[in-house]
């Protein structure tokens, strides 16, 4: 019945919508006809003309009202209202072009930044990488319990697991494996990302057409053959090889391994394409000297993606693959390959980061951290626009009062004001699209300075459009709330009397606006201060040991089983060769990397039982370590060459001051005994100064140094030298290469690696700085806008005060004091907002060496000062204007 009804009336409704004027004319004619006929009837009854006319009209009723009522029954009336509101909004926007332009610009900036970053995050984190039939693309995420550490862990697959899945799965028609890694290209000194992949990797990802050349042939991933070929990603090809058109067939070297380039992978064929150079995963043993993961029976290293067979669902795949993996679990136990007894459970995802249980929390945290500040920028833009609209609404209060007096309903009034916001937001939103697609590219460019090795494909998508719609709706509502409230609170009488000066906006409203803007601005400026400070902090750090003349030599030597003797010879030859190099002072080994946090061990006193000891980091060092790193000796002695016993582990230990304080708060540490986790008893022979080697600028916790055994092959090699670093780096590299041509290394001083870390963070902080500048600008413009608006509102009040004897200085002070109070409250609210954000940020960065404190007073104070100074400047002009009020002119207008 309802549908039939609609079918029947739809043409009617459409007609009425199209030819509205004719309908109005028809209605008029119809009503006039009725009255005419009644008039004639009355005449026929013997009334005179005048009486007949009046009676006819009286019998008919209120003509105007009834015509309106009839008009309202027409279906398109609501649409007509919207259309009227829209035309009104356009007219009022055109009447104040500057104001509208500012509002539109602020919103375009706010919405554009948000959408831009969301577009990027969406492509990177929220969508499956593939563009071809994403519904069938799957990634397998295993979770093991009872493996290695015993705790549940998300991890990767072993080579055997991959084989089992590839050979037995019926629900997947294609299974690919890959591992992200890094390697040195040619003689470069920086690792570039590579992707070890099975030969069907591109096919599974839905990329079948290379930009140039070809992709891997299936035979190239044959175990044991290890065909030495490589595919380059388009961006890497462009910036590392200058887009060489004759690259196919040329030979490149990764970690010294020669590889023939066979193809270029286009960057626009997938949502994101990892990896700079793609090589067959079977080359892993050649690229990675120390570790043959491919042949290792129980090292998980591969992540697996695949395509569902037509007709299979993810649930089918999960059931089947779990069964296969459980079979693997049992096989592991039966063959006694691993000491650990694992149980596997599987999650099947669409390949996006957000669905990966291993990454979900990190991704969510990152998204909150990136979108949160941007949302604040949008809020700032909204409050700016709200101020502008508020002033417009109040300037038009006479007009609004007349509308209300004529009987317009409040809902229609609200609709009118809402439409004005909507119009502005829509124009701003449309403009923001221009920005939205530029922002991700700008960010990627800044981050990687034209050297991004992977590219995120940016394209419009329903999630992005949905996000844009939500932002625009929120912006509309937020920016129109305050004007609507002001219009509703309008005092009709004063407004109609035209006593413009008497009507003022509550000072609470203006204060609220200032507080909001300062608080939001504060949070963003804090972020900028934090990040702006980091590069300087990293470079300015005094770690308590030598960084400029300590060269880290990253070696990858296979020390397992049969290779042990060979490795032994290599190391002693290398040491001799290095010591013979001019400029080299000493070589040393240490097991801990500087600025890398490693889990502490449990150290006990002899009187303590297992489990009651205290955590301390243990660094296994060679005798020359302390002199090379220039760590000050406080008491006793450091290790001597004579301490190295050829029989085995040394029973001596050197401790840091923090360690001594922790274990023997009052007593003398020298000569005391401690117990290692493996029950070795060590005697303390010396105390050395604390260093700041874990986090930048933060003193390390308790640290224990043990002496490296003479036949140990573990630890990182460091070279101490005099003179400049560059020639020595080349000399060390050549020395290593001459002993083992497959070792292509990039030695760096600790200082150089610090600098490169600072550089990469500087790129990030540039982006944040730009965003914070936008925020600061908006906050300041907002404070200025609100304050000059408030001053304009209060001109009359100032005039009266002056007439009553207030000096100009008093007026100036009162305006300024009020604003300063608002700013102070705003700053406090800002701290309340920033603190939880910093806590979250801290949690995410807990493992990085960045020095972030929970409540960073310096950051807060700097940001507060910056904001206060800038907003003072913004306040100055309106306050001056208030001071210059001419009482005569103001009072005369009344």
């Amino acid at each position, binding site marked *: 019945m309802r549908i039939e009804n609609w079918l029947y009336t739809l043409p*009617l409704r459409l007609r009425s919508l199209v030819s509205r004027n004719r309908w109005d004319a028809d*209605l008029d004619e119809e009503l006039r006809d009725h009255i005419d006929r009644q008039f004639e009837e009355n005449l026929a009854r013997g009334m005179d003309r005048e009486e007949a006319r009046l009676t006819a009209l009286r019998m008919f009723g209120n003509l105007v009202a*009834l015509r309106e009522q009839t008009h309202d029954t*027409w279906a398109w009336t609501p649409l007509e209202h919207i259309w009227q509101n829209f035309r009104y909004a356009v007219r009022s926007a055109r009447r104040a072009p500057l104001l509208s332009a500012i509002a539109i610009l602020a919103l375009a900036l706010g919405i554009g930044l948000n959408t831009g970053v969301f577009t990027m995050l969406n492509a990177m984190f929220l969508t499956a990488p593939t563009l071809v039939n994403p519904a069938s693309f799957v990634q397998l995420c295993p979770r093991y319990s009872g493996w290695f550490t015993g705790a549940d862990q998300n991890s990767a697959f072993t080579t055997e697991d991959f084989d089992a899945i590839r050979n037995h799965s019926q629900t997947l028609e294609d299974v690919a494996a890959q591992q992200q890694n890094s390697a040195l290209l040619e003689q470069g000194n920086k690792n570039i990302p590579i992707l070890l992949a099975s030969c069907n990797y591109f096919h599974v990802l839905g990329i079948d057409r290379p930009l140039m050349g070809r992709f891997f042939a299936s035979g190239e991933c044959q175990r044991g053959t290890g065909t030495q070929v490589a595919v380059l990603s388009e961006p890497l090809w462009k910036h590392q090889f200058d887009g060489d058109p004759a690259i196919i067939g040329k030979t490149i070297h990764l970690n010294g391994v020669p590889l023939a380039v066979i193809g270029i992978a286009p960057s626009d064929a997938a949502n994101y394409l990892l990896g700079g150079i793609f090589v067959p995963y079977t080359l892993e043993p050649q690229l990675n000297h120390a570790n043959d993961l491919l042949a290792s029976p129980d090292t998980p290293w591969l992540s697996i993606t695949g395509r569902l067979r037509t007709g299979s669902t993810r649930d089918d795949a999960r059931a089947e693959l779990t069964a296969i993996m459980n079979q693997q679990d049992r096989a592991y136990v039966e063959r006694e390959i691993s000491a650990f007894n694992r149980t596997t459970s599987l999650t099947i995802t669409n390949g996006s980061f957000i669905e990966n249980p291993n990454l979900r929390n990190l991704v969510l945290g990152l998204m909150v951290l990136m979108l949160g500040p941007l949302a604040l920028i949008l809020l700032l833009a909204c409050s700016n626009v709200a101020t502008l609209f508020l002033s417009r609404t109040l300037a038009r209060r006479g007009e609004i009062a007349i509308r209300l007096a004529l009987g317009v309903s409040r809902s229609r009034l609200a609709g009118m004001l809402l439409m004005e916001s909507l119009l502005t937001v829509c124009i701003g939103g449309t403009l923001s699209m221009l920005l939205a697609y530029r922002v991700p590219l700008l960010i990627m460019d800044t981050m990687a300075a034209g050297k991004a090795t992977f590219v995120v494909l940016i394209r419009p998508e329903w999630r992005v459009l949905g996000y844009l719609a939500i932002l625009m709706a929120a912006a509309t509502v937020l920016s129109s709330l305050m004007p609507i409230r002001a219009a509703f609170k309008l005092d009709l009488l004063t407004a109609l009397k035209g006593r413009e000066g008497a009507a003022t906006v509550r000072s609470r409203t203006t204060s609220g606006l200032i507080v909001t803007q300062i608080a939001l601005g504060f949070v963003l400026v804090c972020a900028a201060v934090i990040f702006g400070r980091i590069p300087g902090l990293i470079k300015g750090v005094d770690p308590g040991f030598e960084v400029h003349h300590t060269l880290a030599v990253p070696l990858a030597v296979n020390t397992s089983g049969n290779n042990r003797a060979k490795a032994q010879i290599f190391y002693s030859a290398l040491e001799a060769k290095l010591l013979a190099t001019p400029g080299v002072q000493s070589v040393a080994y240490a097991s801990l990397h500087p600025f890398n946090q490693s889990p502490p061990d449990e150290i006990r006193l002899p009187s303590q039982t297992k489990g009651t000891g205290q955590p301390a980091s243990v660094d296994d060092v060679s005798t020359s370590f302390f002199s090379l790193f220039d760590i000050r000796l406080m008491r006793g002695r450091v290790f001597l060459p004579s301490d190295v016993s050829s029989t085995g582990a040394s029973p001596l230990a050197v401790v840091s001051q923090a360690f001594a304080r922790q274990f023997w708060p009052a007593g003398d540490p020298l000569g005391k005994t401690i117990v290692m986790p493996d029950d070795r008893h060590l005697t303390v022979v010396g105390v050395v100064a604390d260093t700041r080697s874990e986090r930048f600028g933060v003193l390390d916790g308790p640290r224990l140094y043990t002496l490296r055994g003479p036949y140990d092959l573990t630890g990182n090699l460091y070279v101490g030298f005099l003179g400049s670093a560059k020639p020595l780096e080349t000399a060390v590299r050549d020395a290593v290469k001459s002993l083992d041509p497959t070792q292509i290394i990039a030695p760096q001083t600790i200082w150089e690696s610090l600098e490169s870390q600072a550089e990469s963070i500087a790129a990030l902080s540039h982006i944040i700085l730009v965003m914070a500048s936008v925020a600061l600008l908006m906050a300041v413009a907002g404070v200025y806008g609100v304050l000059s608006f408030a001053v304009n509102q209060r001109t009359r009040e100032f005039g009266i005060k002056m007439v009553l004897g207030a000096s100009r200085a008093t007026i100036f002070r009162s305006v300024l004091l009020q604003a300063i109070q608002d700013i102070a409250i705003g700053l406090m609210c800002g701290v309340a907002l920033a603190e939880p954000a910093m806590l979250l940020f801290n949690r995410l960065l807990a493992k990085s060496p960045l020095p972030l404190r929970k409540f960073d007073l310096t950051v807060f104070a700097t940001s507060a000062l910056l904001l206060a100074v800038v907003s003072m400047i913004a306040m100055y002009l309106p306050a001056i204007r208030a001071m210059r009020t001419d009482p005569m002119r103001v009072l005369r207008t009344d």
Partner: protein
Amino acid sequence: MSKPSDLVQGTLDLLILKILALQSLHGWALSQRLKQVSGDVLQVSDGSLYPALHKLEQQGWIKAEWKPTENNRRAKFYSLTRLGHRHLEKEAANWERLSSAISVVMRLTEV
């Protein structure tokens, strides 16, 4: 003169449909007919007819057509649609049920 209450409005709709079911009429003729049948029960101005008529038209129950009348004039004639007939039948049946139920109740209280 003022907007008829909901009850009256409902009754008015029904009356209009009933009258138009018999013959198609223009607005004024309809108002005359309405007065004739309902006497003084329906205390509404002539003009209130038009919002009701237009609403019924929007609902698809009646349709309007301009037709020539005497003296070279024209008027908008309303007639019932197929949907309108069906609606009227249903409403009439409802009305029957309601009024008989009420009369039963009334008789009960008299006993």
